[in-house]
């Protein structure tokens, strides 16, 4: 089926976003699996001719939010996640460690916006549709997310990091 082929082709993109969103590989792949299962169950709601990838991000967003709600981690995510920091410390460069830690430290809602725009290159309007929020909210969350990451990474100094790389 063409649907199946399209879904298979998009797995790497879904995995990339999920990895950045939740940090570790196993949790990210679980999220991708739940997303694909949900996508099949909901495929009749997908409108032909629209962007399948953006639609899948919407599905993933809903699955992700439900999972967080279920595990009641929402408040924890406002703080740094120690296990992520530990994992990243093994063999990764300073820059990568700081980047992962800073992204993980963002509130969930800000992290989603930042990753959809900066990593997945969705337009602000697409991001708004995926997260079902107004474009104005996308812009304000984006600004806050970037400023927080910048603050967390400064001192190390982002320009210096570029030299290290």
């Amino acid at each position, binding site marked *: 089926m063409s649907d*199946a082929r399209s*879904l298979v082709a998009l797995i790497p993109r879904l995995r990339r976003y999920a990895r950045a969103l939740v940090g570790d590989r196993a949790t990210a792949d679980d999220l991708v699996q739940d997303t694909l299962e949900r996508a099949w169950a909901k495929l009749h709601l997908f409108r032909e001719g629209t962007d399948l990838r953006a639609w899948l991000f919407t599905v993933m967003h809903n699955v992700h939010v439900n999972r967080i709600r279920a595990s009641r981690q929402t408040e924890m995510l406002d703080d740094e996640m120690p296990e992520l920091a530990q994992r990243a410390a093994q063999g990764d460069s300073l820059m990568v460690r700081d980047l992962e830690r800073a992204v993980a430290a963002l509130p969930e809602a800000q992290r989603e916006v930042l990753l959809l725009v900066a990593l997945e290159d969705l337009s602000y309007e697409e991001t708004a549709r995926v997260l079902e929020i107004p474009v104005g909210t996308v812009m304000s969350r984006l600004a806050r997310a970037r400023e927080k990451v910048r603050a967390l990474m400064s001192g190390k100094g982002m320009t210096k990091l570029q030299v290290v790389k």
Partner: protein
Amino acid sequence: MSEQNGQMIGENELQAWADDRLAPERRSEVDAWLAARPEEAERVAAYRELNALLRTHFDAVLQEPVPDHLEAVARGTSRWRRAAAIAGWIVLGAAVGGTAGWELRALERAAPVAATPDGPVLAHRAALAHATYAPEVRHPVEVGADQEQHLVAWLSKRLGGDIRAPRLDAEGMTLVGGRLLPRDPGPVAQFMYQNAQGRRVTLYVRTEAPDQRETAFQYTREGNVRVFYWIDRKFGYALSSADLDREALLGLANVVYRQLNP
């Protein structure tokens, strides 16, 4: 908001500058504005650099081989979706008394639904049987799928009717085998299926009283076991799983129903 030569440069535009999403003309204007404001320029340059860092770091995931189980989920479950759509029509058709459409015509005899008073008991016992045997690692079934002919003949004889084990291979579910269960009120057969991820589904089949009416699909949940059940002429069926979500289970229930009612 900041002003330059009568132009307003808002924070949103600075964000768009960082993402390189301004029209060229506007971009030049923002460049000029930033040239006069080193602190703002450094800030938005850091944002732009963050974009590059994120891509450099996480693009590595794109090169990783896709795990088999994810690919299977992406391609292997297409029939569940179609089946779920059909099941939706069955339930709807049953609710409104039946309209046109081949699925409904084929199922007309099941259309005048009324929940059999005994239906919830059927679902409850099926859920119990599922919870009892599905977690079994070493002895999930009495007779394995390698002896399927024997299994089917044996269960048919004990239940006093032509019992078949539906084929769910196209749905990724392989027959593990079956067992005979205590009377409820007549003898009961249980077939067990398992997919590549080890997720299990059981089909509970019992003989019904001769005057038993036929019903449409009904759904219930007992603890973490989801059950779709229905009665069709001589037999009552319940498909149970603690591993599959409701949509996936409904899809399988449809396939089972259609195979048993060709």
